[in-house]
């Protein structure tokens, strides 16, 4: 059977939509389930607060489930967006599959991560019903910031869908798939890590509500640092999409770019999760002892910097692959 441009288009669309929704829905579903489970436990402890807990659970699930909505939107775009003349055939298939990979992997992390603050929010609201608004507002802030990696992944997916790639042949495959994996896997770890940090911060601000300002500050900084691998993934994706010149058009070009994408993408999973764990404990301790928050912040940042070193190695290898060899 001969592969015409139409065949490539169908292959690309169907595979891309499959990746987008298949992987993108996992994280949000698990996260929303975590929130529901914790809400039930909270209702068991405080049956009179059930309406407040239910409301907080629904809000937490709605905000935490938005990465799967991003995945749905990108999946629908992949299926129904008309292919323009400048992007057709194999390059279209590569770009569309890469968009699906980017959004699928990227929304997995953020969706899963947003389950922790959702659960801690329900717990905290039951434990401290007088501070319900401040606890749920810190939950929403934590979840919103934890979704930044999935927003980056959405941006890269949209760029892959709408901007034609300036290379041909195998190199185009490599650029698109490499950018998709770089952003998608690079957003996986940080999504989970930012979520665990937010969970710890919401727990802390419900148990020690007077130090909420210091807790939120530590949470924002910890989330920002643990999202560094997602930034590196986005950087490499942008470099591959916009700043690659004189790339060999054959299988070597594909190997270089796809290898760089896999390096920076999967190299960011570990640091994201690890830095998030550091941030979770830092937030809890800052809430308990807000006067030592400068010392805690410094220790946390130094620890997170060391844990990010593998992400830096991956970035170095990716840049060496793209520019040196």
């Amino acid at each position: 059977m001969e592969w015409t441009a139409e065949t490539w288009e169908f292959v690309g669309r169907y595979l891309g939509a499959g990746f987008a929704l298949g992987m993108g829905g996992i994280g949000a579903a698990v996260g929303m389930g975590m929130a529901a489970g914790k809400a039930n436990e909270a209702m068991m402890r405080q049956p009179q607060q059930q309406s407040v807990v239910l409301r907080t659970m629904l809000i937490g699930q709605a905000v935490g489930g938005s990465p799967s909505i991003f995945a749905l939107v990108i999946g629908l775009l992949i299926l129904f967006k008309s292919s323009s003349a400048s992007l057709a055939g194999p390059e279209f298939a590569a770009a569309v599959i890469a968009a699906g990979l980017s959004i699928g992997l990227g929304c997995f992390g953020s969706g899963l991560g947003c389950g922790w603050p959702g659960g801690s929010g329900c717990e905290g609201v039951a434990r401290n019903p007088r501070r319900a608004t401040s606890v749920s507002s810190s939950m929403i802030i934590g979840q919103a910031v934890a979704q930044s990696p999935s927003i980056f992944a959405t941006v890269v997916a949209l760029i892959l869908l709408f901007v034609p790639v300036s290379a041909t042949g195998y190199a185009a495959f490599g650029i698109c798939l490499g950018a998709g994996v770089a952003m998608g896997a690079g957003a996986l770890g940080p999504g989970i890590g930012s979520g665990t940090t937010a969970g710890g911060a919401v727990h802390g601000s419900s148990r020690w509500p007077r130090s909420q300002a210091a807790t939120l500050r530590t949470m924002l900084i910890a989330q920002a640092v643990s999202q560094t691998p997602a930034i590196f993934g986005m950087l490499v994706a942008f470099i591959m999409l916009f700043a690659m010149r004189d790339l060999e058009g054959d299988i070597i070009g594909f190997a270089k770019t796809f290898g760089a994408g896999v390096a920076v993408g999967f190299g960011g999973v570990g640091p994201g999760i690890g830095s998030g764990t550091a941030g979770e404990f830092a937030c809890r301790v800052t809430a308990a002892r807000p006067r030592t928050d400068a010392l805690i912040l410094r220790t946390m940042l130094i620890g997170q910097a060391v844990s990010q070193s593998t992400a830096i190695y991956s970035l170095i290898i990716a840049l060496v692959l793209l520019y040196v060899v």
Partner: protein
Amino acid sequence: MEGIGERLIWHYVPGMDAAIPMGGLNVLTVLNTLVVMAVLFSLAYLAVRKFAMVPGRAQYVVEMYVGAFDGLVTSSLELESRQQNRRFFALIGALFMFLVLSNLMGFFPTHYFEEPTADINCTLGLGTMGMIIATFCALRVKGLGGYLEELAGPMWSQEGATGGALIAGKLSAVFFFPLNVVGELAKIVSISFRLFGNIIGGGIIIVVVSHLVYNFSWLAVGLDVFFIFFVGTVQAFVFTMLTLTYIAVAIK
């Protein structure tokens, strides 16, 4: 829609057909930065015009802002004199105000009002400035030798170590030193690209969503408000706090 890719790399000069090459100047970004500076200067002038012992509403807001940031800087840096804390407070307070107003400039839907922070040159410049300040403070406090010793890793300086352990400690610097140097450069990349990515990402998402759901324009407006106000403020705060923390880590 197809212009999304071009916007990321360079801006077009309004009214001209040519694109500004890499070595040139992004005129639109510079103009928007000047607008932000004009707004900040006029706010500053209006704020200090009338000082009363019992503050009115505007003076109260200004004092609240100054007090909050002064407390933040003092608790982070813990320097000896109030004078030294004031110097860093000026930098941090101005940085936060500049970033918040820059990010909020995207609120105006006209064609030429864009956030200057949506240009990677602006954010890279601010990030480099922050790290240069932090490095310079570290050099001043610890001296060149002390700074390099700190970069050489935790096992470099050992008191009372014998032959084997001492040599192993010194040799570990071969491993740690390049790692730490790259880590310092990576800090610049990470804070700049985080701000750039969030702001430009919001813009791209709003363009695409408006293109898709032009019947439900309230959706695009709601997303717009979320991205510009919430994400803009949070990312400005995160950038400022990270710069402050890098300076604090450099000084201690």
